[in-house]
């Protein structure tokens, strides 16, 4: 059974300078971060489109959120083993939070000021300001949790941050076991539920809350007229696309069943659209 370990490390310190000015390469832990560690190779860094040369598939998702630069390194320790670290500097705190929420999956995380950290399946995920850090501990021999805790502390010390949630995500339940995702485009949405090719929801900002056998998707828009216009387009698409059955709807709501038997309930709200996907039994 998949073991999930929860831990969070809170560092209280003053904000000496803005983290947004530091590149990932300047922040990533080097071999000097703790005694006994050595870098297996020089820190690799990429910015902009060069992200494709670090990530074998999936770079487009980071770009959708807003990617600035990344640094990667493998650190080795004679007793503890090897750690692989990727540190992403995103364009905004929201973008870093979005990637964190998507990459951590259903691993638990407690909500504290900063940083947020989640650990499971030998991978550590950290959100700190506009940075997202992923640490793979699959090559670790001993003391993984202790080392990871120190890494989180290192990042917090190096980049003081406040981890301000995007406004639409502040409604997320304040629970360490809640599973959610913050989306900033159609590629991220496609990772959650595919409504088919294209972007019928004109996805720019959305929050997904996962519950047992249900996904609650909230799409947000700049204005109420825009939200209503998109909702009308979604209704027309679902009624006519052929991929949904039993469609029923009016100007404020719809009901449909996809070909897998999942039930979709849609509702038009002020500046938003809500869709609940109830998974087939």
């Amino acid at each position, binding site marked *: 059974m998949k073991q999930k370990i929860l831990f969070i490390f809170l560092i209280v310190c003053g904000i000496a300078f803005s983290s947004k000015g530091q590149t990932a390469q300047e922040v990533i832990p080097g071999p000097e971060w703790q005694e006994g560690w050595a870098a297996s190779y020089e820190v690799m860094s990429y910015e902009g489109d060069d992200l494709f040369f670090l*990530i074998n*598939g999936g770079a*487009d998702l980071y770009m959708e959120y807003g990617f600035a630069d990344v640094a990667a390194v493998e650190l080795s320790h004679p007793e503890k083993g090897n750690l692989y670290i990727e540190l992403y500097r995103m364009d905004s705190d929201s973008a870093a939070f979005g990637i964190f929420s998507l990459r951590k*999956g259903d691993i638990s995380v407690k909500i504290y000021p900063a940083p947020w950290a989640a650990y499971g399946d030998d991978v550590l995920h950290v959100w700190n300001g506009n940075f997202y850090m992923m640490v*793979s501990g699959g090559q670790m021999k001993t003391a993984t949790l202790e080392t990871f805790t120190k890494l989180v502390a290192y990042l917090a010390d190096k980049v003081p941050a406040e981890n301000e949630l995007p406004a639409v995500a502040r409604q997320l339940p304040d629970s360490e076991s809640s599973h959610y995702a913050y989306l900033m485009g159609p590629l991220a949405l496609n990772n959650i539920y595919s409504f088919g*090719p294209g972007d019928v929801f004109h996805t720019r900002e959305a929050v997904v809350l996962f519950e047992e056998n249900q996904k609650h998707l909230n799409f947000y828009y700049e204005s109420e007229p825009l939200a209503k216009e998109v909702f009308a387009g979604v209704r027309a698409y679902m009624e006519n696309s052929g991929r949904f059955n039993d469609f029923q709807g009016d100007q404020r709501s719809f009901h449909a069943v996809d070909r897998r038997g999942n039930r979709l309930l849609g509702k038009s709200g002020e500046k938003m659209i809500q869709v609940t996907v109830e998974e087939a039994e």
Partner: protein
Amino acid sequence: MIKQVYFLMGLLFAGLIASAEKPDIVSVKGPDAFVSTQHAVGGLGGMEQFVRPGNTVGILVNSGFREKGAYVDPDVVIAAIKMAFEAGADDIVFLQHIVPEYWERTELEPQYREMIARTRTIEINQFPSEFHEDYFMQIEHLEGALALGEMEVVKEIFEIDVFINIPIAKNHTLTTLTNSMKNLMGLKTRASNVKFHLDGPDRNDPDYLAQSIADLNLLRPADLIISDVTYSIITNGPSGPGETVAPGKVVAGIDPVAMDAYCAELIGFFAEDVLSVEKGYLLGLGEKDYQKLTIVEVEL
């Protein structure tokens, strides 16, 4: 037409296949990927249908990921190598590098270590592969390609006698599915692959990427496709970790379009969401409506 067969004895299955119309796709569900692969290829008439004595066989495996469900089960590859050598292959080359650690992911490794050592691998072609004139060649334009321009591809794809494509059916964020057609991106340098994402009318344009993938399949059709559909990530692809499904199937065929459409459905996707299926069909690479083909589904 889909025929479902519940397998009890090897002879029964062989007899059913021999007496029936030759299948286009054979899908085998079973607890052992090695055995399923043997039966899937056997259902198409056996490896002897594809490999002749003395042949050089090029194999392209999606092996470059660390997450289970994101890479082909090594047992599938070992079964394919074994069958190819038994059919008389003189030389087997992996067209994209397979790191030694890959084989350590299977308990079969000690048993087949010597056999694996007889294969070659193009070491320079590993992510993020860079052009080297000894191993790659530049192609200005593929005849019939609608989007794809200049690219750099592994030379040996044109030097081998038989091309076996071994993908895993799994999620890809931008293309929904990666399987048979998209796996051919493993034949190219990283710089060439990045063009698929950035050279379209919009950055990371799914339509342009799908057309490029379809175009790439004009390069050289695979003689045999073996898709690993045993255990697949269905979100956060292609690297994962993400949600997974375990159809427990190995699927063999020769039509890359039908294989992608069929395997997409096996892992819970809609075939029409995979834009490269439609693009490949329109290029004449295969049949998008796999129901028109003869598919044998076997449960061991």
